[in-house]
C-alpha cells in the first residue's frame, strides 16, 4: 500500500473512503465533491509531489448497481511513486465532478474524452465538448453499458447523420466565430453563436434513393 494513503487519511479524514491494493497497485477512493482539493494536495505537497497526470478515465461496471467511477492515475516522477485515485458517481444523480485542468493541462483532452464516452461533465473545464465523436452526435455516450456495440440507430441512419453537412458538427463555436468575420454565416447560425449555443442534429433526410 502506497504510504500516501496514510498521509491522505491524516489530511482529509473521512473524505478518503476505502483504499485497496490490486495487482500490486494502490487504489484509493475519495469523495467526489473533494476531488480537486485532494488532487491539488497530492500535486503540491512537497512530500507527495504527484506532478505527472498519467491518465483520466472512467469505468462503468456490468452490474447496474455499482456507481460509475472516474479514475485518475497519478505519478511522481522524482519519487517514482504511483497512485490511482477514484471518485464514485452514483447513477441516480447528475454525473458531475470538478475538472482538474487548472492543476494539469494534460487533463484537458482526457476529460473531454471521458465526457464524450461516458457523459460525465467536468465543472470549470475550459472547453468541454466531444472529442472523438462529432459535436452533434445524437446517439448517446458510447462507452456506457446501456449503449449497444453497434449503436442505437440503424446503419443507414448513422450514415445519413454522418453525411449531413453541418458545420456546427465539425467546427467549434470559437472557430465559427473566426469564420464569421470572413464569410456570411447563415443568420440563425450567427444568432446561435452570439448566444453561445450549439446547433442540433439535422433532420434525417427523407430522400435517400436515387
Amino acid at each position, binding site marked *: 500500500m502506497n504510504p500516501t494513503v496514510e498521509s491522505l487519511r491524516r489530511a482529509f479524514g473521512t473524505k478518503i473512503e476505502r483504499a485497496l491494493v490490486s*495487482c500490486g*497497485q494502490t487504489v484509493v477512493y475519495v469523495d467526489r465533491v473533494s476531488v480537486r482539493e485532494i488532487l491539488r494536495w497530492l500535486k503540491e505537497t512537497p512530500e507527495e509531489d504527484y*506532478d505527472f497526470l498519467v491518465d483520466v*478515465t472512467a469505468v462503468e*461496471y456490468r452490474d447496474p448497481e455499482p456507481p460509475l467511477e472516474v479514475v485518475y492515475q497519478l505519478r511522481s516522477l522524482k519519487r517514482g511513486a504511483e497512485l490511482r485515485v477514484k471518485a464514485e458517481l452514483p447513477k441516480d444523480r447528475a454525473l458531475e465532478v470538478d475538472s482538474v485542468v487548472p492543476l*494539469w493541462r*494534460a487533463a484537458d*483532452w*482526457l476529460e473531454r474524452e471521458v465526457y464524450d464516452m461516458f457523459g460525465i461533465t467536468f465543472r470549470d473545464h475550459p472547453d468541454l465538448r466531444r472529442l*472523438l465523436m462529432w459535436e452533434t452526435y445524437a446517439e448517446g455516450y458510447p462507452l456506457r453499458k446501456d449503449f449497444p456495440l453497434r449503436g442505437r440507430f440503424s446503419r443507414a441512419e448513422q450514415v445519413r447523420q454522418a453525411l449531413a453537412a453541418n458545420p456546427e458538427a465539425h467546427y467549434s463555436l470559437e472557430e465559427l466565430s473566426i469564420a464569421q468575420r470572413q464569410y456570411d454565416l447563415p443568420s440563425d447560425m450567427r444568432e446561435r453563436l452570439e448566444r453561445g449555443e450549439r446547433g442540433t442534429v439535422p433532420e434525417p433526410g427523407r430522400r435517400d434513393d436515387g
Partner: protein
Amino acid sequence: MGEKRTVELDLATTGADAAGRPVRVPLGVSGTGEPDLAAEHMLLNVGPQHPATHGVLRLVVELDGEVVRRVVPHIGYLHSGFEKLGEYRFYNQIIPLTDRTDYLAPMANNVGLAMAAEQLMGIEITERCKVLRVVACEISRIISHLVWLGTTAIDIGAFTPFLWTFQEREKAYNLQEAWTGARLTTSLTRVGGMMADVPDGFVEALRTFCREFPPVLDEVDRLLTRNAIWISRTQGIGPMTSEEAVNYGLSGPMLRASGVPYDVRKDRPYLDYETYDFDVPVGEHGDVYDRYLVRMEEMRQSVRIIEQALDRLPDGPLNAQDPRVILPPKSAAMNDMESMIFHFKQVMEGVRAPVGEVYFAIENGKGELGYYFVSDGTAKPVRWRIRPPSLLNIAALPKMAEGHLFADLIAINASVDIVMGEIDR
C-alpha cells in the same frame, strides 16, 4: 548557423477602423496605407485529408498572414470503438486489436497488452519469452522512429531519407513476417507467452540487420544533422520547457527532448530492462531539432539492446507452463484427454481473470503506452483503456505552435510523431 527566432510580422498601423481594430499597412508601403484595408485573420482548415498531417488529424488554424495565431486540433476521424470492442473479447482476442492502434510499431503494443493481462492474472513468463519480447519491443521502436524520420524529412522538404528509411523498414518487415506471418498486423504475443518461437535463421538475420542498419542511419545523419536548411527549419521551433512538458503529460522523446530524463524502461523497468546496458538520450531545448537528435540516438541504442538480448537469449520453454492459460501443443490436445479439455475451455470460455484492475505501461517509440484493465472475474474485461502517448503529445500542439509561421506548424506536427490509430482508438 545563426540562432532561429520566431518571426513577428510587425506591420505599421495607421490608426483604427470604425470597429476599433487597428488598421495595418501592408509591407512595402510606407506611411500612407489604405485606411480601410483591415488585416483580418484567416481561418484555414488543414486536413483531415492532407499529406502532412500524418494520419487523419484536422487542424483548424487562425492565421494572421503567415503567423499562426491559434491552432485547434480536431481528432476522432479514426475513432473505431476499440475500447468498446475490447469489452466483448477475451484477452487473447484483444491482442489483434492492439496491432491496429499503433500500427507503426505493432509488436510493442502486443507486448504491452500481454504484460498487462499477465499482471492482472498473476502469470509469470519464462526467461526466453522475456528476452524475445525485449527484441520485439526494440525492433518496434526502430521501425516507429524510421517512419517518423522519413515522414518528418519529407514534410520539411527532404525526400530522400523517406526512401532510405522505408527500405530499412522492409528489412524489418521481412523479420516480422518470418516470425509472425504478417508484415504489419503481427499479433505476436499471447497471454503467458508468444504466438510462436523465432524460426531458424532469425537470430542471424536480425544480427545482420543490426550490422547493416547503423550505416544507413549514419547516411541520413550526414544528410540532415548539420544541414543548414534542416537546422534553420528545426532549431528553436516549437520549444517546450520541462515544467510545461510534465504538466501537459508529454512522454517519450517529446518529454526527454525537453530535458526530463523519464523513460519507463529505466524508471519502472519491465522485462528485465534494468539488466541491459543502454543510455537514454535527453535533450535540452525541447525544440524540433532536439527531438530529432533524441530519436536518432534512441535508434542506435535500440540496436545496442537488441545485440545484448540476442547474446543472452536462453534456451528453454517459450510459454508459461500453465495449461489453463496457454493452449497445449496440438499433439497433446489430440492425444491426451486433459489437454483437450484445457484447449476446449480456453477457446470456448476464454481465460478468466481474477477480480481486480491493473495499469501497465511500456515505453513505446512514441511515449508511455499504458493499458488499464478492470476485471470483474469473467473472461472479458469490464473496461479496457489504452492510454495513448500521442493523444497527450498532440494536445500540446497549440502551446507549441502558436506564434510560429505556418510552415513551422507542419514541422512541429511532424516532430510530435503521432499515430492516429492510437489517438482515436
